[in-house]
């Protein structure tokens, strides 16, 4: 963002945000007038039944999607007014994404996958490689730089995805069921990693999960129900 944050405005804020898919009889209200604000360095777990709008909310927060109505403000700036290239720059520098299905580029080495955001940040090759390597090291994958996604376990692939989310030093990490495809032991390790990003680096984490054990890592839990926020509690579970 070009201008400094307005005083008193939260880092991210949804104001009466609705998101509607389809039309006529196929119309689905994924979100209905949702209000949510997130402060810097928060660790928010979003839970709720399948289809309750969790992923939709996270996509809007990450500028991958836009609300049908209502406002989304980032540091007080309404996202609707921003040009597509500015949104791309936000996705590149402010947000890091972690998906349930990893979303790594196939037939591309771990190092190149991790370095991908840096290409679009205009970082030169040598620095890209150095930063990607240190991000891989930070997630415990030193030495696996040349491995392709299909040569890595699910947990390792998710670590590569986390390294990719981290590499451009984002303020916010958006994770949509990051442990959804993993066993409980691996799940625990991934949660450890995500939680440490929040605690040690002060990165804001917004994480969708179905697993109460994962949700317990967060300091704040938001429950979605039918496109609304049903409850929002802070403090240890």
């Amino acid at each position, binding site marked *: 963002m070009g201008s400094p944050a307005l005083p008193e405005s939260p880092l991210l804020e949804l104001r009466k945000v609705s998101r509607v898919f389809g039309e006529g009889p196929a119309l689905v209200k994924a979100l209905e007038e949702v209000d949510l604000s997130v402060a810097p360095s928060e660790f928010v777990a979003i839970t709720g039944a399948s289809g309750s709008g969790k992923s939709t909310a996270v996509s809007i927060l990450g500028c*991958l999607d836009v609300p049908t109505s209502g406002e989304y403000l980032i540091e007080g700036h309404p996202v609707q007014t921003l040009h*597509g290239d500015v949104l*791309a720059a936000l*996705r*590149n520098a402010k947000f890091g*994404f972690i998906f349930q299905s990893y*979303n790594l580029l196939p037939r591309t080495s771990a190092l190149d996958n991790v370095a*991908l955001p840096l*290409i679009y940040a205009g970082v030169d090759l040598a620095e890209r490689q150095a930063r990607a390597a240190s991000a891989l090291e930070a997630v415990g994958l030193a030495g696996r730089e040349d491995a392709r996604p299909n040569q890595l376990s699910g947990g390792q692939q998710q670590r590569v995805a986390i390294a990719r989310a981290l590499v451009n030093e984002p303020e916010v990490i958006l994770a949509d069921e990051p442990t959804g495809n993993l066993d409980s032991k691996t799940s625990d390790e991934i949660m450890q990693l995500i939680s440490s990003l929040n605690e040690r680096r002060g990165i804001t984490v917004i994480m969708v999960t179905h697993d109460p054990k994962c949700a317990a890592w967060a300091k704040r839990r938001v429950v979605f129900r039918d496109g609304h926020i049903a409850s929002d509690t802070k403090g240890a579970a």
Partner: protein
Amino acid sequence: MNPRATISLALAALLRNRMRSALTMLGVVIGVAAVLMMESLGKGATAYIEATIAGMGSNILMVVPGSAHGRTGGPSSSGAPLFGPADLEALRRGARDVGLVSPVSQRPLRTVAGGLNRSTPVSGVSPDFLLIRGWSVVQGRTLSADDERQAAQVCVVGHTIETALFSGSTALGKELRIHDVSCRVVGVLESKGASAFGMDQDDVIFMPFSTFSRRITGTDRIGLMMAAARSADRIDDAKAQITNVLRQRRHVLAGEEDDFSVRDPREVQAVLGQVTGMLTTFLLGVAGISLLVGGIGIMNIMLVSVTERTREIGIRLAVGARSADILSQFLVEAVVLSALGGMVGIGLGLLASVGLARAIQVPFVVPGGAVPIAFGVSVLVGVVFGVFPARKAARLNPLAALRFE
């Protein structure tokens, strides 16, 4: 993204689908090859025609009986009378800008020397003939005015005759029997080798026209006169003078068409030029259609590729690619594809041009100017047909692309 990274990304994507990329390039390959062949053939044919006409001798005019407009001319088809020695004499005196003139009367005849014999084209010509053709002897002398006056039984032979009938030893001074007429070889011609059409130009015998008409054909009628203008800028004048003299001698009335024709090989050149022009146009058509089809093929494959890689596009958008980055990625891929096709086409086109030049016996000319043009056209094809798929990719919504299956 910097251009080098974009190009290597495009190359990597194309290498992943080698077969598909190769087949997609085919249209551009053929189109570009056709452009090169067109250029090479056009230039080669022009060079050939010029060389052939230069080889005939310079400033040449050929005079034949029969109207220029009546089919092919020639005595039998038009019924126009042949020329005689008096016409030749009249041209010598009456056509100021005609420097040299000779009758040409040719027949294939059995020629015997020693125990050997062969059938060879024998021509009765005047001493001017070899000068008109710019053909010199390597041994002995050419035909002289005395030979002509005395109807001497002498001849000048081509190199092939020397090897075929005299087994390589010199023919000079030897006796030949041509159509049962005994003839002494007074000169051996410089070798011209095979003509562009593969004809042996050295398989010839020339003898004085007087001897040829009296002893062999029994007639002094002339079916072809060959003349040379005094200089290149006098050719048109010489032609007009020949026409004047012959119209008078043949009593052609004012307003009536000539019953003979004076041909300038440069006119033949123009006709041949038209033929090559048609061939060139045809190749241009082939090139155009191939490039169009090639371009559509590239567009088709790029659309398929965009669909296949929707998820990849979603991932790139999610980590910060701008739509311009996605646009350039796919556009560069299309351009790299067609430019590679262009390069292969240039290579293939050069090879095919060499082959074609050999096959139709024209010299191979490197189509220098066509190479950058062909390459430029192939790049252009990539841009034109790559824009639509690339825009389609660039307009994808990040979320929809990520969720695409």
